[in-house]
């Protein structure tokens, strides 16, 4: 049963990702992105990574996409932006990038098929405890670097957003 569930979720992920990058309305595209992220979370669970699936739902679909939605609502993109998107997204614009992406896919497919790697994923579930041990053991330096990165992002986002709020207050 879970065997076809993987293909089902993968199909939904691909279809909704294609829908997400071709929408004219930003809010609709973000909803399609949520569908993509949730189906990838299902795949994570099927691959035996329940903690990663939970984090995918909580942080990606729950926090990052909501941040996107807040910004889209703050910028107040109306019907006018949909019209402008229609002008920007010309009918034949996707042909050459798709051909290039298809060529890249063929190259990667050849590289993959040459490895004779017919493994099947049948390991046991890797729970949060194991992941936490690895995270706080050999990867502790990476965790600290991630902390630095998040602090830098916090300072940067505050700096970029503060001037906007100040000028808004002056008006």
């Amino acid at each position, binding site marked *: 049963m879970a065997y076809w569930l993987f293909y089902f979720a993968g199909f939904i992920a691909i279809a909704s990702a294609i829908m997400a990058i071709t929408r004219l309305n*930003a809010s609709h595209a973000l909803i399609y992105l949520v569908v993509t992220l949730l189906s990838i979370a299902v795949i994570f669970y099927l691959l035996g990574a329940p903690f*990663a699936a939970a984090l995918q739902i909580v942080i990606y679909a729950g926090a990052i996409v909501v941040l996107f939605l807040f910004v889209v609502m703050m910028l107040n993109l109306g019907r006018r932006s949909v019209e402008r998107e229609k002008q920007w997204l010309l009918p034949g614009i996707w042909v050459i990038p798709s051909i290039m992406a298809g060529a890249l896919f063929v190259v990667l497919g050849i590289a993959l098929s040459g490895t004779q790697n017919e493994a099947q994923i049948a390991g046991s579930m890797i729970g949060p405890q194991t992941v936490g041990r690895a995270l706080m053991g050999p990867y502790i330096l990476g965790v600290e670097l991630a902390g630095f990165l998040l602090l830098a992002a916090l300072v940067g986002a505050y700096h970029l957003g503060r001037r906007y709020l100040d000028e808004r207050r002056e008006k």
Partner: protein
Amino acid sequence: MDVPLGIPFEHVIYLAIILFLIGVVGILIRRNVIFILLSLEVMMNACGLAFIAAGARWGEADGQVMFMFILALAAAEVAVALGLVVQLSRRFRTLDIDAASEMTG
């Protein structure tokens, strides 16, 4: 729930490649900066999927650890990039990424 048996490793990698290429095409065809960021999210998720598939293939936790680093990176990137989006729309009154190409050199 028991662990499902027999998802071929290659098929998961193919799915990750397809999602990554959808993100690449999205970045190339869009001019709106919000859609470019959205495509970047799709690409980063594809990378995370490849990491988790590799971790599950060899039964190690390292794949999930790398996914967590990708998650932190995505959160940091989105926070800064959306601040830049707000600045872009405030200064140029548009979300066109080409409007910001003022630095001629």
